[in-house]
């Protein structure tokens, strides 16, 4: 498999050829493409089995076009370690579209250890799209520690857009200072013997900080899924909501653990969690339009995870 195939799988051929679009392309432990633009510096160093990346967005810099990052492996086997340090400085704005592409994986482990600081009044969004092998021969272990300073905004979306999950172990933790806003969303479709573990945690320590944790998981076949959403509110006027929905089909198993921890009488945090099979009325309404039961289930899950 050639590196161009990674670009094609991630549909980023146009982005990497645009000089106005910053990008960083990593294949296993090799940096195969990078482009910096004004206001953004990327320092990537190859290490054993991976790459150590430092990203700095300069104060008040506004990066207009989404930055493309591709962490992939063209090989069938191996380990990829990504150490990521993101410094989004005060008043800056950046959006990153990250593709994690492992289309041939048979026995691959992808680790990500990220430290992210979002400065005062800065905005950072990170859309993480995973393209996996249909065989599911993959362990994906992303960890992130995030710090939001006053009035910072952070939005993270995790999606598996193609292939099987394999083993997924997400652990994201965020500390939110005064009037900052946290949004974390993970959507995963588990099949066969996929093993899904998602922990998203927000600590609303500053007055007026807000956080929303959203998770959508389908656990089909023999999938095992566990979702832990933790939101703690330490200060006045903090607001938060945890929303977890899991659909189980076949022999799938799912657990949802919403943890809401409130330490201030003027804080308000809510949660909802639902686990169950596909709603019968929803399904029969689609079947009454000519879909088979399987097609109906697929369409409902496709909507839920869209």
């Amino acid at each position, binding site marked *: 498999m050639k590196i161009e195939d990674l670009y094609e799988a991630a549909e980023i051929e146009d982005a990497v050829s645009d000089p106005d679009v910053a990008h960083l392309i990593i294949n296993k432990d090799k940096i195969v493409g990078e482009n910096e633009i004004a206001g953004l510096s990327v320092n990537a160093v190859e290490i054993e089995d991976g790459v150590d990346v430092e990203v700095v967005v300069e104060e008040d810099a506004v990066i207009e076009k989404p930055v493309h990052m591709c962490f992939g492996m063209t090989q069938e086997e191996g380990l990829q370690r990504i150490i990521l340090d993101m410094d989004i400085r005060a008043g800056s704005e950046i959006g990153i579209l990250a593709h994690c592409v492992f289309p041939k994986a048979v026995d691959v482990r992808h680790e990500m250890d990220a430290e992210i600081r979002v400065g005062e009044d800065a905005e950072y969004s990170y859309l993480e799209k995973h393209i996996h092998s249909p065989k599911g021969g993959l362990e994906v272990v992303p960890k992130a520690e995030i710090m939001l300073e006053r009035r910072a905004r952070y939005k993270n979306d995790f999606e598996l857009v193609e292939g099987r999950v394999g083993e997924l172990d997400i652990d994201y933790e965020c500390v939110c200072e005064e009037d900052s806003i946290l949004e974390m969303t993970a959507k995963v479709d588990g099949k066969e013997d996929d093993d899904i573990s998602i922990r998203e945690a927000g600590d609303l320590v500053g007055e007026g900080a807000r956080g929303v944790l959203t998770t959508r998981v389908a656990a089909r076949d023999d999938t095992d899924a566990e979702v832990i959403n933790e939101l703690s509110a330490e200060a006045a006027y903090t607001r938060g909501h945890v929303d977890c*929905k899991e659909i189980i089909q076949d022999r799938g198993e799912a657990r949802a653990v919403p943890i809401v921890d409130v330490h201030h009488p003027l804080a308000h945090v809510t949660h909802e969690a639902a686990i169950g099979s596909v*709603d*019968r*009325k*929803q399904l*029969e*309404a*689609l*079947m*009454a*339009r*000519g*879909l*088979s*039961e399987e*097609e*109906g289930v697929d*369409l*409902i899950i*496709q*909507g*839920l*995870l*869209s």
Partner: protein
Amino acid sequence: MSVLEVRDLDLYMEDEQILDDVNISFEEGVVQAIVGPNGAGKSSLAFSIMGLKGYRDVEGEIVYDGEVINDLDVSERSKLGISLGWQEPARYEGLKVRDYLNAATDDEENEDVSRDVLEKLGMDPDEYLDRAVDSSLSGGERKKIEMASLLAMEPDLVLLDEPDSGIDVSSLERIFDSIDYLVERDATVILITHSERTLEEANYAYLMCGGSVIDDGPIEDVGMYFEDKCLPCETKNIPQKKENGRYEN
């Protein structure tokens, strides 16, 4: 010519008889109504014909186009050309109107059909195709999208459960125009209703009370009787003694 026959149909749910010896022969290409007060068994009859869960275990026969369909599931019945519009249609998190309508057509790649049926319901496709069929839609919007999906599907026989429920006056004519459109396409339309206005759309009506069909005839007769004697129902779905060829409530 009869397209759907319900023969000696009984339905029990948790030892309670919901349908009691229902016999109806629906004529092909005609708008027919099943009328009756709340709790008369109208929706239960429609759900039994569609084969929904909980309504499959019936006694008697449901015969569509000469074939007994009791053993067929919802999907199999819909593939024969039967469909149902719900009184309160299901909502779907994240499912786009575009995908919902495409699912009802034979050609899922063809968006022209979806645009066309939305326009027939007075809905701007550019505004609605990318919206989700979820709680962000009003009851009336959801109901019109339900009807749009039926137009997209072009069923041979369609059961419409309270088609005017939740619809504002300005949209009501769109719903009735859609019924006309289905009939123009040779569909048989069965209206489940207790609305006088909707009843006017039908040519023939069956009056249900207490799980049984107690009368049938042209709308002029059954409709007037229903309006006079059943609205409101003062005998809690217990048919009263028949006098002068009519049941009395």
